[in-house]
């Protein structure tokens, strides 16, 4: 995978005494200590993070954790005190921290677009003039600009509103304009600074869904700042948790939920519904850990209610439940299956845990088997595995 943005040991300090603050950072001083000794505010310290092309990398943290500060280093809205921010620019890589003004401007016009929490629309311009703003700055000719603006407006379903002024639109629509403005520049990298935080929950969910849909088509590299873990888990392919200007954990959503690095992260995820991120893969017991019976039989659960006979290719040859032969059926059809005791459900590693639980419910707490793409048996989930994952014990 190609690296789109690479933060390397980024320190950001706001204030006059840069060198003094950096020395304190090296000693591991906290934000409060630095403020007391130098009067400077620590934005972020020692932040290293690699964002690959096409992924949505979410920066998470409470307010003041430095997440926005780090994001804004990518297009130098915040000046980095020390370290590198490498941004992919076509075939080469540019260090935003040290590049000259002309390079920075080109980067801002063509490579990195931004969406703001408070929308940042120009109230004296119509919707289409706002969407075309970035193109206008980059000197895109009128005709081409109009065409690209029209395309973007259709993409965010605002083509009916193109002649309206920004302030005549609802918050959700205004942020759609903000999105369209960012998309219109066709920049491959998108910075989103809490773009949906100012919207009410219903609209927020809707826009998250729209963003995910658009992302499936457009495959941008998105760095997304959020203070809402549900949002981060929903849209992020990677999540980085920050505290007091420092990164405390980076990982896939389920890593964060299943293996929080410290108490700060644990507090964060305390109120998150694990069902929204966990998949069958995260909770299953590997087939090698299951209790083996004779003749190639394997017990799927600790209570020994259900067992599979696995052939030499790893395929299931026979199934037994409570000593009686049983059939195995896919979880995908769980809603349509009658409730009966003689069936065992199977799932894929990517099946949401929620579906697995539904299958267990339907089959009177029978374990659920896991098959890979080749229908080979890879593991099983018993009711205890589910409970411990949900309760995080």
């Amino acid at each position, binding site marked *: 995978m190609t690296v789109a943005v690479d933060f390397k040991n980024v320190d950001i300090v706001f204030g006059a005494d840069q060198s003094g603050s950096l020395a304190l950072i090296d000693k591991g001083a906290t934000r409060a200590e630095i403020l007391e000794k130098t009067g400077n505010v620590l934005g972020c310290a020692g932040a290293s993070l690699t964002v690959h092309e096409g992924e949505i990398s979410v920066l998470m943290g409470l307010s003041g954790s430095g997440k926005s500060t780090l994001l804004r280093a990518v297009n130098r*809205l915040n000046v980095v005190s020390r370290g590198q921010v490498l941004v992919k620019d076509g075939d080469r890589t540019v260090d935003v921290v040290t590049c000259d003004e002309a390079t920075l401007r080109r980067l801002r*016009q063509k490579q990195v*677009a931004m969406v*703001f929490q408070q929308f*940042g*629309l*120009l109230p004296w311009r119509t919707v289409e003039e706002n969407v075309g703003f970035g193109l206008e*700055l980059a000197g895109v000719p009128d005709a081409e600009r109009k065409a690209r603006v029209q395309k973007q407006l259709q993409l965010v379903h605002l083509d009916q509103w193109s002649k309206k002024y*920004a*302030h005549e639109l609802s918050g959700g629509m205004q942020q759609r304009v903000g999105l369209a403005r960012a998309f219109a520049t066709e920049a491959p990298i998108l910075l989103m600074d809490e773009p949906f935080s100012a919207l009410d929950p219903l609209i927020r969910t809707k826009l998250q869904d729209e963003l995910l849909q658009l992302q499936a088509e457009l495959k941008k590299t998105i760095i997304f700042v959020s203070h809402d873990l549900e949002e981060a888990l929903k849209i992020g392919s990677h999540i980085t948790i920050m505290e007091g200007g420092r990164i405390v954990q980076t990982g896939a959503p389920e890593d964060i939920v299943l293996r929080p690095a410290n108490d700060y992260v644990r507090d964060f995820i305390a109120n998150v519904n694990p069902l929204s991120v966990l998949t069958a893969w995260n909770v299953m017991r590997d087939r090698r850990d299951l209790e083996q019976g004779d003749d190639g039989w394997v017990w799927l659960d600790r209570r020994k209610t259900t067992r599979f006979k696995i052939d030499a290719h790893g395929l299931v040859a026979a199934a037994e439940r409570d000593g009686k032969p049983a059939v195995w059926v896919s979880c995908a059809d769980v809603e349509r299956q009658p409730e009966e005791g003689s069936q065992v459900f199977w799932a894929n590693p990517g099946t949401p845990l929620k579906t697995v639980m539904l299958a267990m419910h339907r089959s009177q707490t029978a374990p659920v088997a896991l098959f890979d793409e080749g229908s080979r048996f890879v593991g099983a989930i018993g009711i205890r595995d589910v409970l411990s994952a949900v309760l995080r014990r």
Partner: protein
Amino acid sequence: MDPISKLLTDYKIPIGPWGKAFFGFLTDNFDTIFRAFSNGLNFILDGAVNLLLMVPPVLLALVIAIIAWFLQRSRPLAIGVFLGLIFIINQNLWKQTVQTLVLVVAAAAAAMAIGVPLGIWAAHKPKVYRVMLPVLDLMQTLPTFVYLIPVLTLFGLGNAPGLIVTIIFVIPTAVRLTHLGVVSVPKAIIEAGEAFGATKRQLLWKVELPSALPTIMAGLTQSIMLSLSMVVFAALIGAGGLGTEINRALGSRRIDLGLEAGLAIVVLAIVLDRMTRIGVGGKK
């Protein structure tokens, strides 16, 4: 007199003589330049006045009403402007009004031309503004009569010194309101401009000035109003127009004349104010 006060007054700082010497130096050495400037200015102003007076008054009133409609797209306003001007013609003060109008428009235009760039500069450089501030205060609070005298000695009598006095009096307002407008551009939209790669110039023309425009336009309206209030004083050093009438009314205690000319100024003020006022909101 008590000894301390006496001691203090004995060593009076010669501010007056210094100033006098300064202006004496200017008149002694650059008199021709100032006079030439003054004559040139007078020529232009008188020319403009004469040109406008060649147009039949009612026709000119109609033209101004059409301009009002063009600026504000409001029929009631255009009709009001026309009726107001007809009232002035009716009071037989048309010539004076045109003189005043030329002076006011010229002064406001010059003050904006100087004040807006200064205001932008001050908004971008807080240090500059800190230096500028006491000068602006001085220009606004120094009693008008005090600087009528040196202007009179430098530029002589006529419309030109009247114009210059008015400009000096009005510039601070133009600077202050431009400064206010540019300083209060929301940070969010400045950042939006920067994030999309605006140059300094693009930022100024596409973000800051449009955002500050309502405040700058309020500055224009204020400039016009202040210019009008200055007209009466300008008449003391020979600027023609309604101010002359009012001064004459004051000198000869003629209530009727004062009332007529005063009302004409009020009408002119309302007309100009309504014509230059910008609608609040996103409309262009």
